Every structure is written in structure tokens, then in C-alpha cells.
């Protein structure tokens, strides 16, 4: 066994290279989310009326040129309130998701890598939390802490921890005995550096998907809590709260309910579609490894 087959790798050659193409499945939802984020940033300055002023027009006026989405029972401009409300809900749900998914994933990664008693303890606690419905758990926390934006973020973040921990743990389990992990152990790396410097970059695409899905769920949770009166307090324009306030007149004046509901619905669908697109691009990446 002397001579290697020098550089004769025997691999089949590529006939034609194919560039990375943008796919509409990714672009369309990303564009929609971008519009929402932009609205959250500049909504207040482009809104035609103040979001909290009463009697900007007659109460329950139907959509018209002066009031694009009509007015609500107090004569407030629904269009302005939807625009300004974007910031509230985006800020709250993004920070709640960051908190919950961040803490949950960190917990799951460590628990999955370390295994043994650590893993067993964390996962049984997660089981207990998962047994409670998310909305109920959030309401429970909010009633004991009192309603405020900070408590809302804390409550929803807490609700997200167990599921994110499960996802991160299952992502890291198949990797814990990989050669590069053992190589890191052999050069004296501790568990924290292995989890966050070696394993986190690999599972990041999976966690990004989880982030998008949780974000969509946070939007729904905040709207639901707002509707039930546990979330954002009046007069702050909040989509869920707006629906709740206007629901009594829905038969005679549907627009103060319809437009915030549409705003929530479209954003949730767009974020979910983005999560789907991320998942399939992750799968393509996996195919490339094979």
C-alpha cells in the first residue's frame, strides 16, 4: 500500500453551477413582517390623528376618506389606533419571546448536553409547567403580579420557557457525543463553552424557527390577554383591547373590531409562513450535508 491515488478523488464534476435564488416563500412573509416592524417604528408620526384623542369625528363613523378605518365608540380614529398599536404589540411580544425562548433554549441546551440528574430534574419541572395551558398560566401570573407591561412580558416569557427548553434539548441530544464535542472535551473545554461555542451555532437555525413560532404565539397571547383585560390597560391602543372594547357594537359597526383583528391575523400568518420557510431552508441545508 504505497501510492495514494493522488488527488484522483473520483468525484463527479458539476455540469453547471446554480446560484442561490430568492424564494417567494421566504420573501413575501419577510416583507409583510418588515412592513409591520416599520409601522411599529414610525406609526405614531405618520398616523393622521392622535391615537387617544376622543371625537376626532362622529362616533362609530364608517370608513371614509377622512377616517380610513372609520371611528370607534368614542369617535377615536381606528386607522391611527391600529398604526400606533403596532409598536405596543411588537415591542411586548418581541421582548417576551426573546426572554422566554432565550431562557428556555439556554436551559434546554445545558440540560440536553449535561444529561443525567441535571437533565432529569429540568425535564420533570418542564413537564409540570407543560401540563398547564399557556393562557391560563399567563393569567395566573398576571393576577398575582398585577397587570403591567413588564409583568406581561415576564408572564409570557415564563410560559414559553418549557416548550423552548424541550426543542433545544431535542436539537442538542444527537450532537452530544459527536467527535468535535469530544475533541473540545479533550482540550479541556468546560460544559458552558461546549454548549455555547460549539453546539449553539449548529442548532441556531432550528432555534430561529422556534423563535418565529413562539413570536406568532406571543402575538396571539398578548391580544387574547388584552381582550380579557389582563394585558395592556386602556387608553393605550392595543389590538386585542380594541377588539374587546368595540365588540358590543360589532353588529352595527364592525370596523373597530375588523381592522385590528385583520392586523393581528395577517401578522400571525406572515410570521408562521416565515417559520415554515426557515424550516424548509434548514432542511435544504441538511440535504447539502448529505
Amino acid at each position, binding site marked *: *500500500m*504505497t*501510492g*495514494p*491515488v*493522488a488527488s*484522483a*478523488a*473520483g*468525484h*463527479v*464534476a*458539476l*455540469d*453547471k*453551477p*446554480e446560484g442561490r435564488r430568492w424564494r417567494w416563500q421566504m420573501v413575501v412573509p419577510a416583507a409583510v413582517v418588515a412592513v409591520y416592524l416599520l409601522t411599529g417604528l414610525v406609526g405614531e408620526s405618520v398616523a393622521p390623528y392622535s391615537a387617544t384623542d376622543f371625537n376626532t369625528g362622529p362616533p362609530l363613523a364608517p370608513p371614509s376618506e377622512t377616517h380610513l378605518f372609520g371611528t370607534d365608540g368614542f369617535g377615536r380614529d381606528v386607522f391611527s389606533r391600529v398604526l400606533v398599536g403596532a409598536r405596543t404589540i411588537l415591542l411586548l411580544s418581541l421582548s417576551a419571546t426573546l426572554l422566554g425562548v432565550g431562557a428556555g433554549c439556554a436551559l434546554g441546551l445545558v440540560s440536553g448536553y449535561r444529561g443525567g440528574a441535571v437533565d432529569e430534574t429540568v425535564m420533570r419541572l418542564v413537564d409540570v409547567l407543560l401540563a398547564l395551558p399557556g393562557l391560563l398560566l399567563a393569567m395566573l401570573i398576571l393576577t398575582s403580579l398585577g397587570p403591567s407591561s413588564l409583568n406581561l412580558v415576564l408572564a409570557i416569557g415564563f410560559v414559553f420557557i418549557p416548550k423552548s427548553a424541550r426543542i433545544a434539548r431535542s436539537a442538542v441530544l444527537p450532537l452530544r457525543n*459527536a*467527535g*468535535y464535542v*469530544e*475533541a*473540545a*472535551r*479533550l*482540550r*479541556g*473545554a468546560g460544559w458552558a463553552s461546549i454548549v455555547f*461555542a*460549539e453546539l449553539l*451555532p*449548529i442548532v*441556531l437555525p432550528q432555534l430561529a424557527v422556534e423563535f418565529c413560532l413562539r413570536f406568532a404565539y406571543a402575538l396571539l397571547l398578548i391580544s387574547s390577554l388584552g381582550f380579557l383585560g389582563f394585558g395592556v390597560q386602556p387608553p393605550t391602543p392595543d389590538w386585542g383591547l380594541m377588539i374587546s372594547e368595540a365588540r358590543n357594537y360589532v353588529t352595527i359597526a364592525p370596523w373597530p373590531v375588523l381592522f385590528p383583528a385583520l392586523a393581528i391575523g395577517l401578522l400571525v400568518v406572515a410570521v408562521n409562513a416565515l417559520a415554515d420557510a426557515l424550516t424548509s431552508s434548514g432542511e*435544504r441545508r441538511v*440535504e*447539502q*450535508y448529505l
Partner: protein
Amino acid sequence: MTLLDVAHLNVGYASARGSIRAVRDVSFSLDRDEVLGVVGESGSGKSTLAHALMGYRMRGTSMLEGNVTFDGIPLLRCPAQELRKIWGRRIAMVHQNPLASLTPTMRVGEQIAETIRQHRNVTAAEAQSAVAASLRAVELPEGSDIARRYPHQLSGGQRQRITIAIALSLEPDLMILDEPTTNLDATTEAVILDLLEDIRSRIRMAMVYISHNLGVIARVATRVAVMHAGEIVETGTVSQIFTAPAHSYTRALLKSLPRPGIAKPKARVIAGEPVLAAASIRKSFGRRTGTVRAVCGVSLQVPRGAVVGLVGESGSGKSTLLRCIAGLERPESGTIRYLGSDLPASVAERGAHVLRTMQMVFQDPESTLNPSLAIGTTLRRHLIALKATDGAAARLAVDEALRRVRLDPAYRARLPRELSGGEKQRVAIARAFLSAPELLLCDEPLSSLDVSVQAAICRLLLDLQRDYGTSYVFVSHDLAIVRYMSDRIVVMYLGEVVEEGEAGSFDRHPLHPYTEALFSATPIPDPAAANARVRLKSQISDADRERPGCIFNARCHRRKGAECAEIAPPWRDAGGRRYRCHWPPSELADQQGNVAHPAARG
């Protein structure tokens, strides 16, 4: 009479990186009794060819042109309905991984019957007798409950027998085998190859046998086609290919094969205290069925500057022993002395000096490098963790390390997925040599690589060993490679050492019957060499660990008598070698004398 005629076959498929033409203008024909061996490296288009021969469009196929005529039927232009009648009944296929091709939730006997029912109208009783006949054909014990087991309850060799039984169940005209023994131990591979040879002599059937291993091809094929980059570069009879290869690629492939009896020059072994001395290492693992003793009281010495080869089947405990030395597993008992001081059991308790001077190369090139990090990042991290180095010096050291393993320093910017398996293993070796180690632990670093790549990596490892004077522990299931690489060989079986000694002395003759079986299982790339037939019929079994007497007793072909089952065999010395057996060396040699030993033929 021609059974299969392939003319100007082209197959291409779309991948994420563009469209790939995997098979280019392939033409050949196959007679009814022929066995065509298709040999080539991974990525040469062998498997794509195998599927195209059946008229099967793999997912992502973007081009399927040319003619494949099977017994007068143009398969590529055949409607799917007709193809389904041909597949299984007239053309059968055996895949590389039997666990993936068997249904995990179905008893294996039922899976054989399913194939028969698919193509023939049979009663339950007829199906049962056909299943029994198929099991007989692959020499699985009939009276046993094997047909009633699920795939996960069978060993790798038994599973592959079942897939062959399924393929044989309808007595096809053509059987396509795609690397059927690649995932098996050498000893199991030898038994499956015997079986295929035997089947071919009994049943009139053509075969296309695909393998990257020329030694295997030499045993089974009558004609050989050499594939390279999607093309067939050479065809000929087995003796033509092996004695007078025409194409330069074929010659290079032949030259890269490990042949028994060929060895590296002896290393400069420095006398005195060994680098590593492990004594009475024990390690067991808890399983649902009870604890399994993976390593039972093994002692191992690595002289300074020497390569110690550790060989055995899977389940012999050789990797576990290596991981105990590395500190990745904590042995239950035993001591390890390293560079003159006692070594803590766990890697976490070991000092910086130990971490720096003891390095490891892992088995699977796919998982040895972090897929999300550039090669340069991986190497720099390793370097900075082991040596306090600043950024600029680290960069220079990384470039130097890549050059040392004959890779372009530009590779530092690449991700592992852009590298071939051999290149990944080179990077892993570069990582190990960043800190000029005293001891390198190699855990089957070659077993998932192609034969020609194996040869290059072997040479690289030996060059580095000579330049750095590093001592190696080299683990492999391939006795030919271990013999090539090592100065000392240690043979392990079921967690115990059964034979050890100077590597050179193994050339003359094996002593322990297990070593003899390992030698005999090595496929030899020489069609003229009828391999000595020492076959271990039964499977390696955990139950044997618990019995009194010799652990090899249940599989031994040279059983002496009652003492083998009752009394643990003594260590016997035989000129630089020692082994554990009830037979003294002279009597063993007498028995083995009439069995020609591969190395003896040189």
C-alpha cells in the same frame, strides 16, 4: 447469452449546488451466469448506476438517457406498472444498510412472505414453505425463531442475510448488490461472501456486485468494471484487471490496497519507560438487559516512539479501552501511567501538559469537525486552548498545520461540508498535531474512508509519526491495516486481550484461533489466492463474557476439549508473542500448518 445490455447510459440529478452528471456514457453487457464487479470510490456514481440498471428514477433525477435492455425489455422506457412486476421478481436488489431496507415494525419472516405474495398467488402454507426455503438458502438455522424476530433483534450479518433471502425468494434472473458487506465486520463479511459464492454455484443467476473494495471484488466477480468520475474507465476479466491493468486509475487503485505481509519500516522505538502503561483497566456499561463488561482487566503498554495496533471485531472493547485512556470514559478500576506519572481517570482532572501531549483522532470524519465552524476557527480554538498564543502567531500556526497534512492553507476559510471525507480526516490530524503530541490515540480513523484515501492517510500518519517521534495507539478492525501500521499488535476479543506481540512475528503465522480467523477474513486483492477458509460461524455474543473457561470457546474452530469450556486458558509464550489458549504453540502450529496463511504467500 446476454441478459442485460446497457448502451450509452447517462444519469444526471439536480443537487443544491447544481446539476450533476453522475453516470456518463456507460455501456456494457452481462451474460446470464456472469458476476460483474463494479469497483470505484464513493462519489464515482456506482449507486446511481445500480438504480439506473433497474430503470429506477431516484428522487431528483434530472436526466436518464440511453438504453438499458433487460431480457429484451427496454427498462428506461417501461411504464411504472410493468417495472413493478419486474422488480423483486426478475431483478432484485440488496442495499448497503440492511437496517434501513428492512421494515423495523415487521417480523423478518413476514417481510420475506410479503415479497412472495406481491408477485405470486400463494396460499399461506405455500408462503410459509417458501419463506423456510429462502432462510435455508441463506443458511439461517431453520428450526430457530429467526423468522419471528424483528430486524433490531438480529445482528448485522443476520440482517444482511435476511435482505439477501428477500432478494432470492423469487429466484430472480439478476441480483444487484450495492456494497452489501461494507457495514459489516471483516469476519462477518467473509461469511457473507462465502454465502454469495455458494448461492451463485447453486442458482443460475447473474449478479452486479458493487463495491469500493477490490479485495471483495476479486473474490466474487468474474468480470470487473472500474468506475471513475461517472465513467467506466476499464473492463476486463478479474485476472486481466489484477495482473495487467490498462488504465492508470486502475493501477493507482491496485497500488493503494493493503496487502497482508506488507509493512512500514520499523519505528525507532526508544527503550526505557513506556509513554503509556495502562494496567488492569475495567469498564462496563449498564444496559436494560444487565451490565455488559466492555473491557475486563486489560493492560496495555506503549513504548516510546512505537505504533501499537489494537485489533478486534466490533464489540471487542478496543474503542472503549482507547476512550478510557483518553479520559472520555471513566474506568471502574485500573491505573494509567503516562509520561512517568499517574493519570487521573477523567479528562476534566488532567493537567494542561497532559491535554497538550495526548491527542486523539476520531472514527467518523463527518462528525469530527464542527459543521458550523470554518476549518481555521476549529484549528485556532484548539491551538489557543492548548497553548497561550496570540492571534497572529495562531494564524501562522494554523496555516503551517494545514500544510503539514498536505492541504492548502486557503482551506482555513472553508466549512467542513465543502471537504471530502479524507480531507476532513486530514484536518482532524492537523488538529491533533498542533501541539506536537507525545501520544496519539487513533480510533478507527480509516474505517469510513475509501481504500485509496485510506492509503494516503496511512502514509500521512506514518510520516508525521516519523517526524515527531509520536507514539500511536492505532485501533482498527482491519488486521491488514493494523499490520501495515504497527510495531506491536494487540488482539482483543470480548473485552480481553487474547494475543499480543511484535507485529513482524504475526507475518509468519497467527497463533490464537481468533487471530487466525481475522487473518483469514481479510479479503485479498489477488484472484489467484484462494483464501484460507477459517470462518467463525456464530455471532459474537455478550453471553460468552459471563461463562467460565475461554471466552472464545463458543466460536472457536480449534476447540481442544472440555477444559475450553471450564478452565480459563493460560497465557503462553511463543518467541516475542504471547496468547491465551489451551493449545501450546507447537500443537497450534501443527494444526494451522495445512491452512495456507495469506502472509505466508507474501
